[in-house]
């Protein structure tokens, strides 16, 4: 059976195509204002890579914040269910899944079958998610990709009273004026994300193993800080941003 998962996120649209539970192809494209169009493009890329046509796909499940915009999806699931299922496939031992995307972060407690037991999300604040890193990278005149490596060069913890992205930017500006290095500021930003995320995940209870997924899991600076706060290194898959789409594709097949 061939199924597909489409994860329509705030920053990117991800598609995973599965055949009998194994990945045939995947793709990621930047999400434009027209999510449907972005999803079509992502699906087209994945179909080309898989060398199949749309008609070969039996079921398509959409997830992500823009899932309701995908008219051609046969089903929808929430990001929570998709994250749990995808993480369970990659790391069956994981009982806690941390998913940090561009717009939202989530903590999910799962059982051995990948069923959601409890979950928590960030509330009305981007100060613990990917768009925060992006915004702060601009403030210190670097790129998102460089934030992690920069952060790992620092051995200093500068506290940030992060209550929201706007205030955080003011704090970063103050740190620049205080002649703090880019490396130290990058680490402070990741520290802020890690404390916020850990606090949120504690609401559902932290149980090992812990899987870290979502685009922010590509950032080694966040992983380093989260490892400190969680007291254990999270399991991070290759292509962590595709796990939601993978979960959706698995749910489509189930």
């Amino acid at each position: 059976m061939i199924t597909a998962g489409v994860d329509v996120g705030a920053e990117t649209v991800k598609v995973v195509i599965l055949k009998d539970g194994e990945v045939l192809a995947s793709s990621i494209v930047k999400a434009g204002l027209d999510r449907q169009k972005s999803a079509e493009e992502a699906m087209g890329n994945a179909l080309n890579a898989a060398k199949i046509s749309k008609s070969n796909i039996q079921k398509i499940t959409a997830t992500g914040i823009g899932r309701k915009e995908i008219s051609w999806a046969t089903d929808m699931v929430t990001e929570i269910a998709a994250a749990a299922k995808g993480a369970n496939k990659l790391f069956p031992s994981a009982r806690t899944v941390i998913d940090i995307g561009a717009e939202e972060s989530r903590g999910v407690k799962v059982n051995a079958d990948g069923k959601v037991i409890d979950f928590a999300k960030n509330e009305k604040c981007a100060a613990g998610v990917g768009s925060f890193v992006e915004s702060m990278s601009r403030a210190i005149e670097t790129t998102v990709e460089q934030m992690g490596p920069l952060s790992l060069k620092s051995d200093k913890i500068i506290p940030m009273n992060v209550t929201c992205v706007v205030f955080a930017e003011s704090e970063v500006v103050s740190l620049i004026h205080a002649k703090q290095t880019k490396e130290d500021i990058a680490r402070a930003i990741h520290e802020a994300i890690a404390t916020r995320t850990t606090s949120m995940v504690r609401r559902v209870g932290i149980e090992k193993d812990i899987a870290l997924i979502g685009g922010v899991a590509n950032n080694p600076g966040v992983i380093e800080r989260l490892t400190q706060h969680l007291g254990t290194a999270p399991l991070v898959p290759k292509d962590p941003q595709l796990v939601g789409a993978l979960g959706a594709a698995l749910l489509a097949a189930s």
Partner: protein
Amino acid sequence: MEWVATWVFLTHKWGPSVPKTTKARYPTKPLEGWKHCKELRLQHYKAFITARDEGKAIFTGSGDGSQILVHALHDSLFLSGEPYGASIGGDPAASDAFSEACEARGFARDLDSYMRNYLGSMYLDRYYFGGPFPRPDFVFSFHVCDTHFKWYQIVAEHFNVPTFGIDIPVSGRLSDRRESRQEYLASQIYDGIEWLEKTTHRRFDDERFIQVLHNLTETESLWGQICIQNQAIPAPLDQRALFTLYFPGFMLFYQPETPAFYRELLDEVKQRVKDGIAAWPYERARILHDSQPPWHWMKVFRIMEQYGGVSVGSQYAFCGGCSFDVDDQGVWHAPKTIKERGIVLQSREDAVRFLAEWEVGRLMFSVFCGNADDKNRQFLQMVKQWHCDGVMFHLNRGCEGVAQLQLENRLAMIEAGIPVGSFEGNMADHREFDEAQTIDRIESFMESLGLTKLELA
């Protein structure tokens, strides 16, 4: 069968056109008492517009208990701040205008949203149901929430009218120092009676007082019986109905129309149970709700229903209109009336003692105690008796009092193995509500209960 509704779902353009159907599990029909209830509510609020012409006194204050004593003096109209603020909260445009008028006078945006709606309406001199804001003759308020009496102090100062507050003691556990709390409340009730006589220049009529208490317990007993009926599967009433239907019992218990209405409603609900009539024909899971709802977005319950989740009750709707009797095993029963208790109230002293005992024992007040134990126990009991599959917490930023124990309650449910979901919002200020996030949280919770979205047109 006629009631088995079938909807056809169009599949995606690439797939085969296989129609998907969701069949109703239970029959349903509209509740006949609904319209009457809405009329009673509207009559109450419209009465303020003509009260002056009819020579009726108007007073204002918190909750419902405030009016028990005043109705022993004369026929009067009581503008209770919380339900009035909730009415405004259901209308985002009005709520914006009123709360912003209040905030423009320096009130913080994170204060009680009922209060901001009410005070804004007062400052703009615009009564939500028409005409100018009803000027009270005096303020007389029972209160369990400290900030609430400050609210009515502001009202009294604004209109330059006399004010009196009765503090219902809540702290620790409901069972703690019960007798001394009753004595403390009773002593204030005596002071309140004296103050009312001096302020209104009317004699406090003990016979009327006792009659009001009889009406109160009869109304609450009937409401309790209606709530108990909702233990049936399928639930004959949903949460939206309960939030509306409890209003007469909460606000209008003193008038004979209210127990008469509840008797009819109880008969209707019993018949629905007997006939298996469901509030939502697709009931697949039963959810207990916590806190006031976001009145501006009652769709919160519709989202659950799209998955077959039916909110069958809440402490707020159950206990806001009724002080349940709890037996030695912790089981909730509709409260007995004064007569059913075998009590004969013959004097003011008897009546004051009874009122103090009744008010101090209200299960609803557990939320204000600052100790989660009572509310946790109540929740576990409600989940059991109303056969709930999970609890949905509205983390309500609009009411500090009701919100104060919610996260502890949430943990207690999780420890007991009861699935919980939550969403953030505000009961009467839509500016603090994120629709997309709320839908996402509810849908995630429904999925975690193993429910899938119904295929509805």
